[in-house]
């Protein structure tokens, strides 16, 4: 017997909701962890774009 997969739109809704929970609830909470907060604050103080792909993007514009 084969299990039927849920319809695509339902899968999209489920994964989209999970992403929403992670980005709007989990990550903001992680950002408050002392070690993470310290990490973020240090990089902000130094104007460093840690998400830079190439050296031309490293320094943040302020």
């Amino acid at each position: 017997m084969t299990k039927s997969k849920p319809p695509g739109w339902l899968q999209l809704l489920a994964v989209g909701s999970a992403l929403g929970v992670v980005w709007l609830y989990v990550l903001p909470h992680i950002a408050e962890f002392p070690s993470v907060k310290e990490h973020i604050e240090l990089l902000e103080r130094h104007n460093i774009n840690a998400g830079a792909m190439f050296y031309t993007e490293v320094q943040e514009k302020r």
Partner: protein
Amino acid sequence: MASSTRSFFGHEDWLVILLGFIVLVGCCWMAAAQSRSTDQAKPQVVNALKGKIAKLEPWTSNPLDSLALRSPSENAPANLKNIYSLVFTWSVLGILLLPIAMWKQMRPSEYWTGFAVLAALGTLAFVLASQKVIKYYNFEYVLWALMLGLLISNTIGVPRLIRPMMIGDTIIKIGLVLLGAEVLFGKLVALGAPGILTSWIVTPVVLITTYWFGQRVLKMESPSLNMVISADMSVCGVSAAIATGAACRAKREEISYAIGISLLFTAVMMVVQPYFVLQSGMDKNVGAAWMGGTIDSTGAVAAAGAFLGKEGETIATTVKMIQNVLIGVIAFAVAGYWSIRFGDQPTGQRIGVGEIWRRFPKFVLGFLAASLIFSFLLPAFGWSSSAIETITKDSVSQLRSWLFCLAFVALGLETSFWELGKYLKEGKPLALYLIGQAWSMILSLLMAYLMFGWLYADKVKEILAK
């Protein structure tokens, strides 16, 4: 119109190079050097495009903060600058990619609907990547662009109307021509001999030996996956994976896999490596050079370097920057090697120059030409380094980021989890990455000690003091 465009260019890559150079000429034209101060000896360079290409702000809990809509004072109207930038950026990209649509004989409805979907998902990818935890742990926008594309294609599927717009490979090549302008050979001398020797000896050695190990010892099934992982790990992460992947015509799943694995380990290494340097009592200059040579991603190197202080940050980012410059040479070499080594005739048969030229990915020439023009030709015509810097940093680099973002959305929309899952199940690519990274760490540490801790230790301190 479409067929005449096709016959004129013959090969898509020529059109890609032309579009890339139209952007570069436009950026140069918009960044005319004007004297704004009374001091004629030091004219300020004004880039009219500065701030016009959308760049989202970091945010913690409210995604709308990425648009920075709030005005400094409470009574003032909302700040719409970023909205205008977004509209401007979408317009530029929409017009830029139009000739590609004509080349591929798309209908206007297919192009504009497809472009709207790519632009919307691309913008969402940038919003996700701007969340502070994501951003400051180096999970770059390409990962989220890919993820959003994968999510759509593997749930509701890609509507027939926008399928012709799945041209990620082509958009990547335009982005790579722009990236060429950011590869400035003048940056090589920033740290003198120790910087060049650390980056330019270890990197090619690690790349070649890791690729050899993958082919001969691990017996990887796909040489292109082997090359993309080797380059990603030994040169500069995502940008190297994209450039070499395009040069050796790697499959989109192979590039996606290499990028995913690299970003995952980079997030760990950018925290663990500076901690190890500080706890082990290693000389900070040596540790910074070591991190610059081994951590894949450029942004993560700067972040890790910052934990060692200002000098550590300078050394780590400069070593990485010199390694970044190597990307042009590597992409050219890989394209040449692939053209000679991998073709459709029987193994061992000699191939002629004409055949090598036929196989060679022509866009690499545009990439290299852009690098040479911005490194040597513009300075020779009197363009100052600050003018070139504002062109590359304030406009070219940002347009290139948008092109890569749209390209990875399109690649995600074309990829199935099943295809990607094959690589996740196999242990060899992961083993290749881990063994290559360990090898890179050993060689880089030896070279960093030799150059920054012994041979040129005093010279480096002298350079930093300036």
